[in-house]
């Protein structure tokens, strides 16, 4: 690899401070980074490790409320930490480009995609408008966007998330920069869509020999993309090594713990013989006001003490099923049974006891806990509301619940949710559900907003609680790794229909329904050659949206 000997970006002893509570606090504590031309470096670490901050600093940019307090950032012979704003502006967009996590939030919804694409080349007088448009279409084609001639003339909301992320990558390539910073570009996407974006990014970076910094918290993804991996923890470097070596023998304990996260697994339980299901969803159709049918004849059962995982990509109706069960969205047809008796379709008509039995844990703990209410009241309210507990009895119950979720009661009793970390908030959410003493809990993507280490802790906690309290879970997720570790039974959904269901072991052994197969094979693996192999097997045009549309309707498993 002779192309990689020239140094493009050299960061030396970088220190960044953030302003909080009237003091400057160190965020990045002396990180070195060397990036050669054409090299892709993966930055990984949990949230708060300073990945994105370093990514921004590579452009000489410090976000609001932060400042670069020391060290040097040298980009192609130019010192960025002392450069004037004018000089840095000239680099950004033309020689350094940035691809953000949420393409939907980063495109201006009022302008056509191609107008936003051509803005940089025209601004820097690299190309004329028409040339730039031609070039954009070529890039769209290279990134395998459908209708490359036409797609640029749509508005951002008219294309899908995965396509938008690729359009954003194309936009970053518009001036053929030397360096692109990818800040979690696929985190918000489904597994099936993620592959398309990953493959497209990898090809285009290879083709133009662009150097890239790839920021993510997903190891399996970074293994596909990066030549070297740097692991960060709390603003400090843990270790750095070429990808293959890093995956095979990580040196530091922290890295090993990251690698080991996916090892949590528990024994699969089977349905109790002859018992009636705890929750039974029967032939449910549902639609939001005035819209098309979102659920089409959905049926499945959940037995006592078991975990049923509902998987599918976004828009498949997973969360809508949960809304039907809780009664927020009364179904058009069909019914929900609980312990053999039919529940009223609207939650307003249900009794207090029926409401108590089914609780919910939300994906975003930030919005699921009232920020202006103390922890003791958040957890205490259900106990007070359903159980009528007061005074000392209530305090004992709250202490007991905090103990149950492995948080020290005296420390958390009087605190407010914004003061807690993501994992702690999610635990409070679990405690609130438990406070009602339910027999059934709906977990809606409870781990997808969390780092892997924290997520694993939550999964272990949920598993322990299930064993101790004999709870049933309905686990909504798009992450098949989570399904592997915690589920007993799996329900696969697509376009509002249940395409396949059964015990977990059956689901993970072939033959699958083609859609299940697509989902399973789209989950990135730790093997750095996984993406290459997969693309060879399936062909570059048979991934993501394209593949799910190509599912053969004559397949015997489809018609069943």
């Amino acid at each position, binding site marked *: 690899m002779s192309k990689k000997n020239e140094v493009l970006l050299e960061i030396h002893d970088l220190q960044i401070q953030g302003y909080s509570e009237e003091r400057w606090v160190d965020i990045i504590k002396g990180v070195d980074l060397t990036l050669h031309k054409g090299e892709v470096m993966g930055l990984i670490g949990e949230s708060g490790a300073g990945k994105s901050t370093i990514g921004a600093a590579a452009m000489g940019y410090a976000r609001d409320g932060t400042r670069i307090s020391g060290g040097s950032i040298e980009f192609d012979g130019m010192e960025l930490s002392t450069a004037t704003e004018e000089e840095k502006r000239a680099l950004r967009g033309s020689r350094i480009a940035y691809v953000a996590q949420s393409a939907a939030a980063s495109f201006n919804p009022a302008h056509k995609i191609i107008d936003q694409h051509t803005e940089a080349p025209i601004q820097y007088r690299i190309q004329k408008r028409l040339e730039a448009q031609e070039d954009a279409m070529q890039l769209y084609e290279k990134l395998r966007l459908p209708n490359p001639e036409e797609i640029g003339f749509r508005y951002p909301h008219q294309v899908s998330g995965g396509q938008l992320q690729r359009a954003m990558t194309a936009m970053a390539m518009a001036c053929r920069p030397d360096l692109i910073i990818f800040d979690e570009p696929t985190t918000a996407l489904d597994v099936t869509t993620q592959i398309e974006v990953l493959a497209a990014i990898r090809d285009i970076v290879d083709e133009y020999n662009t150097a890239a910094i790839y920021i993510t918290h997903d190891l399996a993804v970074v293994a596909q993309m990066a030549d070297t991996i740097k692991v960060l923890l709390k603003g400090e470097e843990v270790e750095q090594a070429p990808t293959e070596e890093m995956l095979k023998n990580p040196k530091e304990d922290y890295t090993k713990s990251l690698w080991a996260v996916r090892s949590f697994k528990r024994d699969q339980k089977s349905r109790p013989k002859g018992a009636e299901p705890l929750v039974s969803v029967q032939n449910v159709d549902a639609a939001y006001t005035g819209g098309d049918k979102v659920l089409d004849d959905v049926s499945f059962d959940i037995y006592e003490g078991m975990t049923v995982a509902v998987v599918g990509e976004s828009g498949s109706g997973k969360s809508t099923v949960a809304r039907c069960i809780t009664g927020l969205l009364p179904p058009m047809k069909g019914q929900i049974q609980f312990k053999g008796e039919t529940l009223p379709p609207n939650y307003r008509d249900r009794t207090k006891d029926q409401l108590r039995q089914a609780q919910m844990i939300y994906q975003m703990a930030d919005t699921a806990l009232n920020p202006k*209410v103390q922890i003791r009241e958040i957890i205490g309210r259900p106990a007070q*509301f359903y159980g009528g507990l007061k005074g000392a009895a209530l305090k004992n119950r709250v202490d007991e619940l905090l103990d149950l979720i492995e948080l020290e009661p005296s420390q958390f009793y009087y605190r407010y949710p914004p003061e807690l970390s993501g994992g702690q908030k999610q635990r409070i959410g679990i405690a609130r559900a438990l406070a009602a003493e339910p027999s059934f809990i709906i977990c809606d993507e409870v781990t997808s907003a969390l780092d892997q280490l924290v997520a694993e802790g939550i999964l272990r906690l949920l598993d322990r609680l299930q064993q101790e309290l004999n709870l049933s879970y309905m686990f909504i997720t798009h992450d098949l790794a989570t399904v592997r570790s915690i589920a007993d039974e799996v329900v696969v959904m697509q376009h509002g229909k249940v395409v396949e269901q059964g015990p977990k072991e059956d689901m993970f052994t072939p033959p699958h329904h083609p859609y299940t197969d697509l989902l399973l094979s789209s989950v990135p693996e730790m093997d750095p050659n996984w993406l290459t192999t997969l693309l060879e097997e399936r062909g570059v045009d048979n991934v993501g949206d394209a593949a799910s549309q190509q599912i053969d309707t004559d397949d015997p498993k489809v018609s069943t």
Partner: protein
Amino acid sequence: MSIFVIGYYALLLGASCLAAYFNKRSLFMLLFTLTLVSFIIGIVGGVSALWFVTGAAALILLAGMTAYGFREFLVQILPGEASKEFKTAPLTAAFGMFVIFTYLVMGIFAPLIAPHGEAEVIASAFAPADDTMLLGADQLGRDIFSRIVYGTRNSVGLALAATVLAFLLGAIAGLLAATKGGWFDQLMGRIADVIMSIPSLIFALLMLSIFGPSIPVIIGAVAVIYAPRVFRLTRAVAGNVVVMDYIEAAKLRGEGTWYLIRKEILPNSTAPLVAEFGLEFCFVFLLVAGLSFLGLGIQPPTADWGSMVRENATLISFGDITPLIPAAAIALLTVAVNFVVDWMLHRSSGLKE
């Protein structure tokens, strides 16, 4: 050239040199610009203009010192959390709080402070100021200073009552509309639209001519005029809160509407509402003063700032500034309230989690 002029320029130049030496850039720019401007003012307006500049600077300095002192005082006497908040308050906010505090004292202890009764005729009409009358007498020979003190009680009290009522009506309707949605929301929204489509002063005049200008009618009419604005703001703020997952969780728990509003929605929408309260208070105050000026507000002989301006308006043509004093009292309170509101707005939109 008088000693005053020499001293004036010497002081300014000396201070700007010191500022430059200690690298206080903005202070230096201010002082030196003032020096340069003073040259022009001095040439055009003579010594008296320079005296005016000195007086204004001294007044601003005095206000600043009062504000600083008042803030330190609050920091000292208040307990932990609150004192921390006040430590970061800007001087303008401290000044605003000081003015509001003074008005409060004036309003509450009016009979003790005022040397004469508000309707007591003690001198001839338009008698000039002397030892017993700080600001002279009005058109009937009543002490203007005493009337201003009593006016604090009446004008501010009336405006406060009207604002509180407007907030109660508007906020409760807004919170209910956001929580219930559907036809109730539509109904409330349309009622608010109808009230807002009528010009406020004309609506108030209409109400007062129908029911007669008594205090409950004034409060009621003003509250009805301002409630729709509060309603719209509350509904918008609460609308952002009701879509949160924790509201859904509370609904699924089976909580009633009243609990939802009180415990879940209200704590998350207080900051903009408090700020809006301050702003609305100013508008209400001005409307009440305007009504008094038109003769439909508080009826004589009760002292009220708006009507005091009207009654003494003729004095303006004789070059007497007496009618401007109640007007200045209105202006000062409005500015002060706005200073405090600005600070609260900044705090609620600030970087605080």
